[in-house]
C-alpha cells in the first residue's frame, strides 16, 4: 500500500457535514465564554467596570486577572511568567483583559461589550526600532528592557573570512509578520465533571496540553482528559498555550457546568499568535565563481507584547538552517528577540526554517546578480553533492540526511525549460508592449521529523519520539492508536497504508485513532513535519511486532516451524504447501484462546512502539516560479509554479501532492499578499479577513509537482516529512522571480508582500 494514491478514510464524514469540530460539540448545560480584549496597545488598567455586564439576564459572571491569582502562571520561559488575563497593564491590542460567561453566545458577546475598561495610556512601541530606542520604556514587566533574548548561535567569528573573501556584499532582508489563519478559529470546550476536566480543544499536541493543564491545577494526569477532535487546520498556530485552555476548565470547575470558548475571526487576528516577523542583516563573502565563503547573519525577531516560550527562541532554528543546500564553510549567526506592543509571535508553518531558506536563497541570487552570473549556475557551484551525505553543517548536531540537491535542480530546470524562459525573457525586454517576465529559483532544505528527544525537550515536550499501538481485533481487523494529532494531513489514511503493508491486511480493515488522551497511550503530537518520519515509523515498528507474533501463532496452528510460514493473501501458508493455510482472522481469534496456544503465550495480538528518530530529517527540493509583471500597474501574475520535492519515501502520492500544494499556497501568499500590520499606536490594521489578504481561488496558480525520492537513512521508512516544505520553498521562489523581472532596472530587492503598489513603486523609483 505504501506509494498508492488511495482516497482518504477521513473524507466520508467531513464531506457530509458529519465531522466533529470543537464548536460542533454540545454538552447539557453548556455555557459560553467570551473575552474582553484590550483596545489599547500599551496602557495601565485603572479600572474595570463590569456591573452592567453582570446585570444582563443570562450572564453568570465576569472575571478579571485578580480572580485567577491562585492559578500558577501559563507555560512560560522561567523568569518570564505570565498570567491568563492582563493584570495591571496591557501589552498589545487584543490581549484578554476579562472573561465573561453567559448562557448563550449572543448574551456573552453583549456582556463583553458592556464591560468598561479604563486605561491610562503608556507610550506605544509598535516597532522593533521604537522598542529599542534609547527612550523606550520596558514593556513586559519581568524584563528590564525590551531585548528579551540575545543569543550568539555559533561561536564562529567570520570577520577575517569576510575580509579575505574576493567579494562581499551586505543585505537587509525582511520576513514580514503573517497570520496562520486556519479557517477554523481556536476553540475550547471544558467540562469539569468529577475529579478533573475533559477538554476538547483545537490543539496539535493533546498529551502536552494534558500535562500543562494537570500541572496548573495540581492534578495527576490520569484525571485530565484532552481531546483534539477534528481540527480545521492549525499550521503551528494551534500549538501555543492560549489562556482559554486553562480558563475554560477553571470556569467549568467554578460554575459546575461545561464552558465553551470559540474565538471569532476578528479575535483570532489579534489574539492568536502570529508568525515570522524577522529582519535579517546579512554579510556574505564569495569568490569569482559565486562560491559562498562566509556568511554573517544577525536576526532581529519581533516577539510581540508578551514573549511566548517558543516564539522567543524560534530564530535558533533559523540560524541552524542558514546554510541551506550549500557547502558554506563558515557561518556566524546571532539573534535578538525584541518585545513590542503587538500580538505575540510563535510558530507558523515551518517555524523559523522558511525564514532561513528565504535568506540564503535571496543571498545566492544577490551574489549571482553582483557577479553577472546566472542564478542557476551560482547554485550549482555551491550545492552540497550527494556523495557528501550525510553532511555535517557548521552547526553541531545539524546533519543533513541523504539527498541529491543537484539532481533536484536539474530536474527543475528541465521542467521549467529554463533556457527557453531566458530567451523569452530577453524577447519581452526588447518589446515595451510585452509584460516583463521573471524566473525565480529556490533550492531549499528544511528540518522535518522533529525529534529527537534531546532537541524536542527544549521546546517543553516530554520527548521527540512518537508512539503507536497496533491491535488486531479478534476478527482480524486492526485498530491503530497513534500519538500524533493531525489537522488535515490525512494520518488515518497514510498510517493505515503503512500498517497494511506490515500486517498484510487490507487497507479497509484498519482504523487509525488519535487525539484523545484517554484512548491513546502517551503521544507527542503533530508539528514539525513529523507525521510520516516519526509516527509512520512507530506504526511500522508496532505493526511489524504484531505481524511477527501472528506468524508464530499461525505456525502453531499449522503445526509448522515459524520460519517455514509465509504470509499469503489473507493469512499464512506453510512454504511449499499450498493446502496448509490459515486466515489472519483465524489467527487473531486464536490469539485470545489460551487453552489452544502453547504454554506461556501472551494473549492478544497487540504491540505498542515508541519510535525515537536518530536525528531530524531534512526534506529538500528545488522550486521554480515564473512571473509576469504588468509594466503599467506592477501587478504580479504567476504563470507557472514548478515543484521538485524530495521528502524521501512517499506514502500516499495523493495526500503528498495536497501537502505540497497547501504549503506552496501559503508561501505564495506570504510573497504576494499577506502582511499583518499595525499603525504607530499599535492598532492592528489587518484584523479581519477583509484586511488580511488570505488568497482566494483566483489569486493562486496551478502547481506542477515532481518528486525525487532519496530515502533517509535516519529512519527505517526512509521518510523525511512534507508538511512544511512548500511554505519553506515558495516565498523566495516568487520574490526571486519578481526581482529577476525587474533586475534590468537595477532593482535588487522587493520586500514581501510584492503587492502591485509596492512593485509599481519599486519600478518607478528605479527607472
Amino acid at each position: 500500500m505504501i506509494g498508492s494514491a488511495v482516497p482518504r478514510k477521513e473524507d466520508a464524514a467531513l464531506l457530509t457535514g458529519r465531522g466533529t469540530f470543537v464548536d460542533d460539540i454540545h454538552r447539557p448545560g453548556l455555557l459560553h465564554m467570551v473575552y474582553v480584549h484590550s483596545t489599547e496597545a500599551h496602557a495601565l488598567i485603572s479600572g474595570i467596570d463590569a456591573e452592567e455586564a453582570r446585570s444582563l439576564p443570562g450572564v453568570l459572571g465576569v472575571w478579571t486577572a485578580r480572580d485567577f491569582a491562585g492559578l500558577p502562571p501559563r507555560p512560560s520561559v522561567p523568569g518570564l511568567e505570565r498570567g491568563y488575563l492582563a493584570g495591571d497593564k496591557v501589552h498589545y491590542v487584543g490581549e484578554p483583559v476579562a472573561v465573561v460567561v453567559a448562557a448563550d453566545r449572543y448574551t456573552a458577546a453583549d456582556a463583553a461589550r458592556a464591560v468598561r475598561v479604563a486605561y491610562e495610556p503608556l507610550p506605544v512601541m509598535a516597532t522593533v526600532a521604537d522598542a529599542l530606542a534609547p527612550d523606550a520604556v520596558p514593556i513586559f514587566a519581568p524584563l528590564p528592557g525590551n531585548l528579551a533574548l540575545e543569543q550568539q548561535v555559533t561561536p564562529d567569528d567570520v570577520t577575517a573570512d569576510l575580509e579575505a573573501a574576493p567579494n562581499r556584499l551586505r543585505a537587509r532582508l525582511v520576513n514580514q509578520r503573517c497570520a496562520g489563519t486556519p479557517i477554523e478559529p481556536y476553540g475550547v470546550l471544558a467540562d469539569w465533571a468529577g475529579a478533573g476536566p475533559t477538554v476538547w480543544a483545537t490543539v496539535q499536541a493533546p498529551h502536552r496540553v494534558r500535562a500543562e493543564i494537570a500541572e496548573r491545577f495540581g492534578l495527576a494526569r490520569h484525571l485530565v482528559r484532552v481531546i483534539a477532535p477534528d481540527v480545521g487546520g492549525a499550521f503551528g498556530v494551534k500549538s501555543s498555550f492560549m489562556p482559554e485552555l486553562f480558563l475554560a476548565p477553571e470556569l467549568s470547575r467554578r460554575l459546575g457546568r461545561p464552558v465553551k470558548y470559540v474565538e471569532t475571526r476578528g479575535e483570532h487576528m489579534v489574539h492568536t499568535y502570529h508568525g515570522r516577523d524577522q529582519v535579517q542583516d546579512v554579510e556574505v563573502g564569495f569568490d569569482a565563481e559565486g562560491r559562498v565563503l562566509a556568511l554573517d547573519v544577525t536576526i532581529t525577531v519581533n516577539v510581540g507584547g508578551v514573549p511566548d516560550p517558543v516564539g522567543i527562541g524560534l530564530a535558533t532554528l533559523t540560524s541552524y538552517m542558514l546554510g541551506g543546500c550549500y557547502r558554506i564553510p563558515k557561518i556566524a549567526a546571532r539573534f535578538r528577540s525584541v518585545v513590542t506592543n503587538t500580538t505575540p509571535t510563535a510558530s507558523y508553518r515551518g517555524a523559523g526554517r522558511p525564514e532561513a531558506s528565504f535568506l540564503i536563497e535571496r543571498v545566492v541570487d544577490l551574489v549571482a546578480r553582483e557577479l553577472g552570473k546566472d542564478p542557476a549556475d551560482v547554485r550549482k557551484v555551491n550545492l552540497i553533492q550527494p556523495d557528501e551525505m550525510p553532511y555535517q553543517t557548521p552547526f553541531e548536531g545539524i546533519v543533513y540526511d541523504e539527498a541529491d540537491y543537484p539532481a533536484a535542480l536539474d530536474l527543475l530546470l528541465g521542467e521549467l525549460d529554463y533556457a527557453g524562459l531566458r530567451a523569452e525573457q530577453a524577447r519581452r525586454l526588447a518589446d515595451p508592449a510585452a509584460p516583463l517576465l521573471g524566473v525565480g529559483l529556490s533550492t531549499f532544505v528544511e528540518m522535518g521529523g522533529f525529534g529527537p528527544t534531546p532537541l524536542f525537550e527544549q521546546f517543553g515536550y516530554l520527548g521527540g519520539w512518537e508512539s503507536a499501538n497496533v491491535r488486531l481485533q479478534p476478527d482480524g481487523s486492526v485498530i491503530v492508536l497513534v500519538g500524533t494529532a493531525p489537522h488535515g494531513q490525512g494520518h488515518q489514511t497514510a498510517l493505515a497504508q503503512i500498517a497494511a503493508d506490515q500486517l498484510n491486511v487490507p487497507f479497509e480493515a484498519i482504523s487509525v485513532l488519535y487525539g484523545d488522551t484517554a484512548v491513546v497511550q502517551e503521544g507527542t503530537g503533530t508539528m514539525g513535519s513529523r507525521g510520516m518520519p516519526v509516527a509512520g515509523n512507530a506504526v511500522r515498528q508496532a505493526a511489524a511486532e504484531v505481524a511477527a507474533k501472528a506468524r508464530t501463532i499461525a505456525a502453531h496452528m499449522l503445526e509448522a516451524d515459524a520460519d517455514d510460514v509465509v504470509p499469503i493473501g489473507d493469512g499464512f501458508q506453510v512454504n511449499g504447501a499450498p493446502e496448509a493455510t490459515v486466515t489472519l482472522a483465524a489467527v487473531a481469534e486464536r490469539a485470545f484462546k489460551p487453552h489452544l496456544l502453547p504454554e506461556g503465550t501472551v494473549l492478544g495480538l497487540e504491540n505498542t512502539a515508541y519510535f525515537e528518530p536518530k536525528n531530524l530529517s531534512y526534506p529538500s527540493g528545488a522550486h521554480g516560479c515564473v512571473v509576469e509583471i504588468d509594466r503599467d500597474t506592477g501587478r504580479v501574475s504567476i504563470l507557472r509554479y514548478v515543484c521538485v520535492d524530495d521528502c524521501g519515501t512517499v506514502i500516499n502520492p495523493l495526500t503528498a501532492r495536497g501537502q505540497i500544494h497547501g504549503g506552496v499556497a501559503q508561501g505564495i501568499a506570504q510573497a504576494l499578499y499577506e502582511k499583518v500590520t499595525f499603525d504607530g499606536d499599535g492598532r492592528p490594521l489587518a484584523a479581519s479577513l477583509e484586511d488580511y489578504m488570505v488568497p482566494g481561488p483566483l489569486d493562486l496558480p496551478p502547481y506542477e509537482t515532481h518528486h525525487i525520492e532519496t530515502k533517509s537513512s535516519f529512519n527505517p521508512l526512509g521518510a523525511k516529512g512534507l508538511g512544511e516544505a512548500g511554505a519553506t520553498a515558495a516565498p523566495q521562489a516568487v520574490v526571486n522571480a519578481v526581482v529577476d523581472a525587474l533586475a534590468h532596472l537595477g532593482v535588487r530587492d522587493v520586500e514581501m508582500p510584492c503587492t502591485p503598489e509596492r512593485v509599481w513603486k519599486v519600478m518607478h523609483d528605479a527607472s
Partner: protein
Amino acid sequence: MRVEITVNGQPHSREIEPRLLLVHFLRDTLSLTGTHIGCDTSSCGACTVLLDGVAIKSCTVLAAQADGCAVTTIEGLAGEDGLSPVQEGFRQCHGLQCGFCTPGMVMAATALLAERPDPTEQEIRNGLKGNMCRCTGYQMIVESVQWAAANGGAR
C-alpha cells in the same frame, strides 16, 4: 418571532430572536453543525448553503429573512445511494484536507454546476471566489469540481 424554514426537505417552525443569524439557526437551533463559521466579515464562505437553490453565506442572512424559504445544507446533499457527484469528486481528487472549508466549498460548487454544468477552470475559480481554503491551495478543489462535472454534475 416565529419562522418556518424548510431545511433539507424537512419543515421546521421555531420561535427565534429576531437577530439570530441563519448560520446559528442551522447550527444551534437545528443542530446541523455541518455548516461552519470561519469569519465575521462574510469573507470565507465556510457557511455557504443553498437558499431556494441559490448559494448564500448563511452568516450574512438572518434566520428571519429565510422565513418561508427552503435551505439545503451539506447534510442534505448525499442520498441513500451515497455521496453526490460533487462530494465524490472531492473525495476522489483530494479536494479537502482539514475539511473545515469543505461544506461551504461543496455547496458553492454544487450551485456553480447547477448553473454551468461544464465550466472551464477559470469559471470554477471564479465561481468559488467567495470561498477560502487555507489547506489545499485550490488546485485540487478545481480538479474535484471538474471530476464532478464529468460524473453527474450538480445532482
